[in-house]
């Protein structure tokens, strides 16, 4: 092959799914090789949840009222704790430049990274909710609704968090700024997520809360990868 001709635009240009797959597979493989770090984040979540019954009251009705809220706040903090990892490593070792220069759409590569982030942090957090909820004397129905809300809500945390993580790349106090930037955006997710169990208990049914969470997830799915991709480009300039 001679290189003198103008380069044909690569077949990879515009290929969304292979781009998502590349980032997903690579990030999952790296996460599996650094399991200790993931374990620390989950342990943090478990400990935060366990501290509340110890520090407040063993009274069952009170515990079962505050349980969903505590689990949601702990999930938020666990997500926040893991967010700097999303882009900072790739930024420091030069991979992010190669990602931005790849013929694959940057939004697709970023989506793959966000999906890997959710699979390694949000999903375990949601799956750990039922055993942790037992500490709060929650009944089976409440636990099911809480887990469903976390399954719909934690991807929103990863998607919104990715925008913040990309915006704070390269800043000296990026971690604390990220918390200030992202926690207010997490508030609606927290309200509808934690409110789902309350709504079911009061007889209103959790449907409305879960639907609103799902609508939020749809909006975040469409918008967040592109916003995060733009923020990555700004960080590299």
């Amino acid at each position, binding site marked *: *092959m*001679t*290189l*003198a001709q*103008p*380069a*044909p*635009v*690569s*077949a*990879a*240009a515009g*290929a969304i799914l292979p781009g998502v797959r*590349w980032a997903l597979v*690579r990030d999952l*493989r*790296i996460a599996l*090789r*650094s399991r200790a770090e993931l374990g620390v984040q989950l342990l943090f979540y478990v400990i935060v949840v366990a501290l509340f019954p110890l520090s407040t009251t063993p009274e069952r009705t009170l515990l079962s009222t505050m349980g969903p809220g505590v689990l949601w706040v702990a999930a938020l903090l666990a997500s926040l704790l893991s967010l700097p990892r999303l882009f900072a*490593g790739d930024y*420091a*070792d*030069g*991979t992010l*430049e*190669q*990602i*931005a*220069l*790849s*013929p*694959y759409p*940057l939004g697709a590569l970023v989506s793959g990274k966000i999906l890997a982030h959710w699979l390694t942090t949000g999903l375990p957090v949601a799956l750990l909710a039922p055993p942790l909820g037992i500490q709060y004397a929650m009944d089976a129905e409440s636990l099911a609704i809480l887990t469903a809300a976390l399954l719909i809500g934690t991807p929103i945390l990863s998607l919104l968090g990715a925008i913040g993580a990309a915006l704070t790349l390269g800043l000296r106090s990026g971690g604390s700024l990220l918390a200030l930037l992202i926690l207010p955006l997490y508030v609606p997710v927290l309200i509808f997520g934690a409110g789902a169990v309350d709504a079911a208990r009061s007889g209103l049914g959790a449907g409305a809360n879960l639907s609103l969470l799902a609508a939020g997830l749809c909006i975040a799915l469409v918008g967040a990868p592109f916003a995060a991709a733009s923020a990555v*480009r700004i960080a*590299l*300039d």
Partner: protein
Amino acid sequence: MLEAHELAAHRGHSRLFEGLSFRLETGHALVVTGANGTGKTTLLRMLAGLSLPAAGEIRWNGDVVAPFDPLVRAAIAFAGHAPALKDELSAEENLVALVALAGESVPRESIRAALDDVALGPKRALPARVLSQGQRRRIGLARLSLLKRPLWILDEPVTALDAAGIAMLAGMVAKHVARGGTAVAATHVPLGLPDAHVRSMTLA
């Protein structure tokens, strides 16, 4: 063909360079030299499409290209200061991932042959964490040799390389240029290219 027209770069309020123009025909290499802080990396990042010039335009094969232009992304092999390796992955896995990220599919035998060529064959299963800086750079050389990209942008490519590594790099650039490729490198080490195909530029 890579052209720059009246490029300017600012850092804060100070000017790095202004009115920088050049034209690099296919089959030529441009060697950029200059003291530290004169804007070599900034220029290379502009040419790679990572940074927006403060003024001026860049043309690739006659088309004006903006930062992150798909035309450039399909044509470029960029090697920056950091070698883009993941400590957790082995040398071979890193190389496979980087080649796949560039949208090219290369058979596993070619990947291993490229690692053999840069004398990393016996170390291909080791995690990048335990490789020396020079060995990490050599993975970058293997990547350059595997990617079929017409435009190479190399920022300080000889950093941490030993004499054999520098000779490998020079050989690769010479071969690339001879095949009709274009290369821009910021380096102070002579790459031993035939003079007729090398342009030099010193930033001040």
